[in-house]
């Protein structure tokens, strides 16, 4: 059977085709289902955030590089893109608007090449510090060079520049959405493909055991540098899309707050799975657009959620989903749904109580001039009466106790089930 040694059986990966077709379909029909202006704007921002978070995850999830300065590359990409757009408007640059995000991408790649050389000399904690320092450097520079960065007002442009191509002027938001959707789909596909390349695999190895990789003969610094440049390229594409979407770029796009946001939401979405940052990007837009409307304390809630996530579910939402899918695949989900219900209800009540307390304190601190009554979820509450405070604290503490009881019960069940599943997997392997 010597001839068959070179024969490789490659099944047509049906699951993968289905998932990617569904993703494309989702991008295609989303604005048809949610047709309002707000929805289309949010969908566009989600596309941008998905590309940005996925590019960040090349560093955090796949390379184990914790960067505090990823917004530098998306932000500088934005600036280059908006300057290019202005040049197109003036007729100096014969590039169609549809290709402007690529200008951002090339700019991101260039700056990642320039700054990444210094940054990727180190890994681990020093890497994180250097990215923070470089982010501060670029942000401080943005206030110094107002010709390029536009100072306080930023740089604005008109995306309806150049010749319309097949009637596409990018005037209506829906056309911009489809441009972003195409770029999002292609970028996501490319970044997924990257994880399958030898370089992508080496990057994982550098994350897990750099010493061993060095012994095999690879230069870990080079692997990190290449990955950093690729991440910079996709961050620049996200930045370029942002420039077209908002038609204005201000200095905050290179700021550390933006970088922190990428880190936060990529982690919340889940850095250990490829699709985690997609969830993170969607959440990022929801938080920035809806949560910040709902409450002034949204950063506090975000910080608390992040803290608990790091402590109890370091794999983010994606890992929670995958764990439960695994439990479901072994048919054990039925046993714990009662616990889930108890946990969910008590957590919701704790959140309601604590939320009421936080809103009342915020009201006292910031809007005391607006009267003593704060409306919380439609219920009027007097911030100066003892009874509303007593009620809030009582509800919060009681539910916290119930939650802790439920959590202990759940942890026992959960670890039992996990142990059973491990045993089952072992048993199947030996068969």
């Amino acid at each position: 059977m010597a001839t068959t040694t070179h024969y490789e059986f490659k099944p047509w990966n049906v699951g993968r085709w289905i998932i990617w077709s569904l993703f494309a379909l989702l991008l295609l029909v989303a604005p048809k289902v949610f047709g309002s202006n707000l929805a289309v704007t949010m969908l566009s921002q989600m596309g941008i955030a998905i590309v940005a978070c996925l590019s960040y995850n090349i560093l955090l999830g796949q390379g184990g590089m914790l960067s505090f300065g990823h917004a530098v590359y998306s932000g500088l990409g934005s600036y280059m893109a908006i300057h290019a757009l202005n040049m197109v408007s003036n007729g100096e640059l014969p590039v169609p608007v549809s290709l402007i995000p690529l200008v951002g991408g090339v700019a991101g790649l260039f700056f990642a090449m320039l700054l990444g050389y210094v940054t990727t000399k180190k890994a681990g904690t020093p890497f994180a510090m250097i990215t923070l320092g470089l982010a501060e450097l670029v942000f401080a520079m943005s206030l110094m060079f107002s010709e390029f960065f536009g100072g306080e007002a930023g740089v604005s442009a008109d995306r309806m520049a150049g010749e319309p191509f097949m009637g596409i002027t990018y005037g209506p938001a829906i056309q911009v959405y489809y441009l972003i959707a195409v770029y999002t789909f292609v970028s996501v596909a490319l970044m997924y493909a990257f994880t399958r390349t030898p370089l992508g695999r080496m990057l994982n190895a550098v994350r897990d055991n750099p010493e061993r990789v060095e012994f095999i003969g690879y230069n870990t610094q080079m692997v990190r540098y290449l990955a950093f440049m690729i991440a910079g390229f996709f961050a620049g594409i996200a930045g370029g899309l942002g420039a077209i979407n908002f038609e204005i770029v201000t200095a905050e796009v290179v700021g550390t707050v933006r970088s922190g946001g990428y880190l936060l939401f990529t982690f919340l979405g889940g850095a250990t799975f490829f699709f985690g940052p997609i969830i993170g990007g969607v959440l990022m837009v929801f938080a920035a657009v809806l949560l910040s409307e709902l409450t002034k304390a949204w950063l506090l809630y975000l910080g608390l959620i992040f803290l608990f996530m790091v402590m109890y579910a370091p794999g983010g939402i994606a890992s929670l989903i995958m764990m439960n899918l695994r439990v479901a695949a072994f048919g054990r989900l039925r046993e714990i749904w009662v616990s889930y219900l108890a946990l969910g209800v008590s957590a919701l009540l704790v959140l309601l109580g604590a939320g009421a307390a936080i809103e009342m304190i915020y009201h006292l601190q910031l809007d005391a001039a607006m009267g003593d009554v704060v409306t919380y979820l439609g219920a009027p509450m007097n911030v100066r009466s003892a009874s509303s405070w007593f009620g809030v604290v009582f509800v919060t503490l009681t539910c916290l106790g119930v939650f802790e009881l439920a959590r202990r019960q759940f942890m026992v069940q959960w670890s039992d089930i996990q142990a059973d599943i491990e045993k089952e997997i072992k048993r199947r392997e030996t068969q």
Partner: protein
Amino acid sequence: MEFFIISMLNGVSYGLLLFMLSSGLTLIFSMMGVLNFAHASFYMVGAYVGYTVSKHIGFWPALVVAPLVVGALGALFERLTLRKVHKFGHVPELLVTFGLSYIVLELVQLVWGRTAVEFPPPQALRGPAFTLVHHANDSLELVWGAAQAACGAEGVLCSPFPATRGFMMLVAVLMLVALWLLLTRTRIGLVIQAALTHPEMVESLGHNVPRVFMLVFGAGTALAGLAGVIGGSTFVTEPAMAATVGSVIFVVVVVGGMGSLPGAFLASLLIGVIQTFAVGLDHSFVSLVQQMGVPLSEGLASNPVLRLTLSQVAPILPYLFLVLILIFRPKGLLGTREG
């Protein structure tokens, strides 16, 4: 001359304040391997707690109470969260402190409001510690206090040095000496030093290493709290104060060499002095060349990059310094390991 002396003193005092912060950060880092991202947040909490305490019982008690409160909070944080994620590795530890910095910022705004609070230094520290009087006949004289008598005259230039700055230097030096004595001359210091390098061995000798970690974390944050009380009353107590020093102290720690206490000291002073001098100097490349009598073309003279004055560039100098150090001496000024 007096510009040089006063700037030097200002720079050194700012550098010493940076060292008060970076020493705690370095101690925590070299011991636990955790870079405490929220270190500057503890500095801010120190300032705000000091503000509240000094409003009720005065500044001097606040100088003792606020660091204790901040240290207790730090130890509590270590016990409740950091110890839990210790087993996941260093990146989650950094992330936990990163999350904490968000929470602290919001909580501070929740309790003390979003605008700056008025936290004046005590009566004894208002006004200048001494004044350098530049007499009309070009002689220099040092006068303790404000020197009102001499400064009114014509042709006399007075350069006062604020008492708060002097106090800042005094406290920092005292703290430095106390820290050094604690680490080298006491039993607990020996245990800490041993736990730095050989935690397993120390543990098997019967010392409670997690508790030592908690104490070190508490002590480090208490130092940040002390710096906060002094920094808050000297500069301004506002929610943005953590962000302004936060990234600079990380630069200090990297430039000095990760985990090296003497390196942190050197780097703090260097960065403090460089930044203070840069802020005070209004020269740009263009003005410098023109002073030397070299004529410049119209295009060069109006070039926006060349026209930037040193004081405009001052905010980026620490970061430029960081980049240069990383290129030419990756382990930091006095660092020993290249990690």
